[in-house]
């Protein structure tokens, strides 16, 4: 059970309080109907899935309830940092 630093609570909290939210910084298109099928596919389905540094979303669902972003190494599962939603990509 990994420990996750919630940037809102400013505490390390156990994984079972959190819900994983998939890859981070995928900008939602402002006008989906104007997009090509390829662009829409990329938005909906294409994921980075790297071996190594991964930007991802978490929600402290059984805590403060907030979504936030994290950088984690997918080979070691170690977090590099976590930061609040809306902050620029780290």
């Amino acid at each position, binding site marked *: 059970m990994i420990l996750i630093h919630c940037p*809102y*609570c400013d505490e390390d909290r156990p994984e*079972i*309080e959190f819900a994983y939210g998939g890859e981070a910084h995928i900008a939602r298109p402002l006008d989906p109907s104007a997009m090509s099928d390829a662009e829409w596919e990329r938005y909906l389905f294409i994921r980075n899935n790297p071996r190594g540094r991964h930007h991802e979303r978490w929600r402290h669902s*059984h*805590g*403060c*309830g*907030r979504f936030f972003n994290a950088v984690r190494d997918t080979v070691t599962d170690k977090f590099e940092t976590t930061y609040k939603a809306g902050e620029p990509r780290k």
Partner: protein
Amino acid sequence: MSDVLTRSEPLPAEAFSGNQVVIRAAPAMARFSLRARTAAEVSAVLGFEAPAKIGATAHGVACLGPDEWMYRGAPDAPPPVAAGQMVAITEISHRNTAIVVEGPRGAEVLSAGCPLDLSKFDIGRATRTVFETVEIIVEREANDRFHVEVWRSFAPWLWTAITQVAAE
């Protein structure tokens, strides 16, 4: 009509007592969820200083998240009125019920299913967390007294779990 109805309670009226711990249902109370962008707006609604730090409590109000406060009052307490403030007020008096765990083994009993380090959980702190798979809000009211809020349909399970641990 309503005066002939009785409310069914999910928790037993009788306390569990033994092994240096007493577990009982908290008395009925009014509960409101207050949501706002700042503690100042919540304070303006309540008429007293609402805690601004997540996890802090004051005057029956707990700050559970950056935009979330839970206010608990007497059973007949009227709902707070937004009065022009940008505060969303929702009554949750009956969504939650609560179990009070008290005694020298209180922290140990809760630690059976709660993954937080309760020895570092100061008096007056409150937070949402879990007991095994069930969401709870735990508040340390005194060194050996914890107030545990839980949604009512999970309350019987939580009661059974906590009392079983206490009996061990």
